[in-house]
């Protein structure tokens, strides 16, 4: 064996012994490794698969029940929005999506695993970014199946219930926007929940804060009746604004356009992730 080859082998063996964080790597490589680590953790955590299945099943079941319960005998329909009605299940599905996101980081704080994670990957913000990519990707996939399933189920259920207007169809631009937008909505709820859970570090408290943020705003708008205040509240409430993406009827009466509404939720999600990222950098793990 030549001397150079021996030196090379020794060096390789030495690099293998070093902690992986000390080996210099390109930023793309390290991002890919962070993503791979988070993917493995979320994939192998107990319950992720069940929770993703629950997003699909609960969303489609509640949507079908809502579509099945509507009866309208008045001529010209009852002012129901078929796409929005068929996607009612998103109200419940978002709670499950929030659990997935909260557990992705809260579970690590609960067990102390987070210290191992940060020892292996000292760049904490890239850990959060990798978690955000994995969680939003998985929720987006489950949400797409859930909303497409909801609309397809309602297509079978709704005829005969007396709703006015053209039949619900994913071939129709507005209905497709409502369905795909609902999947994006669920993914953004996941990002919001991930940011909150990173800042709070306790799963139960984080899910309480997220669901409070989502559900208390619309309860408040139901009691506030004065015009200007009501409109502002509906524009900034994460759930009310975000679900504007489901509207296919009376769009001009909404306080925001559908995509602006989803944008308002995206701003909430970005704010929560920023808060979580800052907390990660400034605090001990």
């Amino acid at each position, binding site marked *: 064996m030549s001397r150079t080859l021996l030196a090379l082998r020794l060096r390789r063996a030495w690099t293998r012994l070093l902690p992986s964080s000390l080996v210099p790597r390109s930023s793309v490589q390290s991002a890919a490794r962070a993503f791979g680590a988070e993917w493995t953790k979320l994939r192998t955590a107990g319950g992720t698969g069940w929770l993703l299945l629950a997003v699909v099943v609960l969303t489609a079941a509640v949507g079908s029940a*809502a579509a099945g319960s509507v009866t309208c005998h008045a001529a010209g329909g009852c002012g129901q929005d078929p796409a929005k009605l068929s996607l009612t299940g998103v109200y419940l599905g978002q*709670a499950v999506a929030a659990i997935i996101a909260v557990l992705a980081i809260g579970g690590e704080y609960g067990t102390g695993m987070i210290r191992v994670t940060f020892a292996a990957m000292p760049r904490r913000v890239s850990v959060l970014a990798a978690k955000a990519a994995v969680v939003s990707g998985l929720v987006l996939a489950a949400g797409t199946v859930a909303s497409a399933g909801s609309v397809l189920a309602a297509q079978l259920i709704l005829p005969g219930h007396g709703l006015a207007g053209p039949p619900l169809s994913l071939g129709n631009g507005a209905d497709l926007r409502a369905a795909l937008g609902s999947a994006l909505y669920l993914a953004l709820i996941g990002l919001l929940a991930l940011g909150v859970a990173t800042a709070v570090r306790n799963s139960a408290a984080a899910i*309480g804060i997220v669901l409070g943020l989502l559900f208390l705003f619309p309860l408040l708008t139901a009691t506030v009746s004065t015009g200007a205040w009501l409109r502002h509240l509906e524009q900034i409430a994460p759930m009310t604004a975000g679900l504007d993406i489901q509207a296919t009827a009376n769009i001009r009466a909404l306080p925001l356009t559908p995509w602006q509404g989803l944008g308002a939720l995206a701003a909430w999600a970005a704010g929560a992730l920023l808060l979580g990222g800052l907390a990660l950098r400034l605090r001990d793990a």
Partner: protein
Amino acid sequence: MAPPGWTGSRQAGAGFTVSGSGDIAPVVAGAMGASKRIEEAISVGSFAAVIAVGVLGALFITAEYRRGLIRVTLAASPRRGRVLAAKAIVIGAVTFAAGIAGIAIALPVGLAKLRSGGNPILPVTALTELRVIAGAAALIAVAAVLALAIGAVLRRGALTVTVVIAGIVLPYLLAITALPADAADWVLRTTPAAAIAAEQSIPAYPQVTAVYTPMYGYYPLAPWAGFAVLCAWTVAALALAAFLLHRRDA
């Protein structure tokens, strides 16, 4: 009596039948007029409190499982049903006291704010006002006990909090915003959210034409019947929790 939905006056022989809402009938809350019900001053706050005590009640047991403290607890008092009962009494009493205090502050403050905003408040008897306050506080306290019981069954904090909120807050929210009338009615009869009826201060008058829907503060069940639905769910959850606590290893 006039057929439902019929408004106006009708002469039959020597008598007049008058139906509608106005000065000769009680004023009702709803689409017509800016009148507010007293519970509008506290309903959002009581749901916020339900979410907070849901977290508290869930952590009261799931934190013990998380830290392993539950093994010490059960070693110290091996009668597990008694541990659960003691926890339920403590969390129920504490949250009821906190709920009464919070509602007793929120109600006058909220009503003063509504009045200063130019909204007339529909008058109620002192007994009804007391029932609204006690009902809201009882809703908060039983929600905490329900969270404790579900927490003992699931042993996971985040999952427990979600189930409690999805059981109490979400059905009410769906009933007043998204669901068709029949489904809203069904949801407020069967889910734990039925307990919101305990806060209803103005009854539905059969002689007054109005929109009697949950959105305007009229619920399908009587106040204590609605509260009983929540209690039934809680008793069932406690029974399941006690059974599983005996059956399973800690």
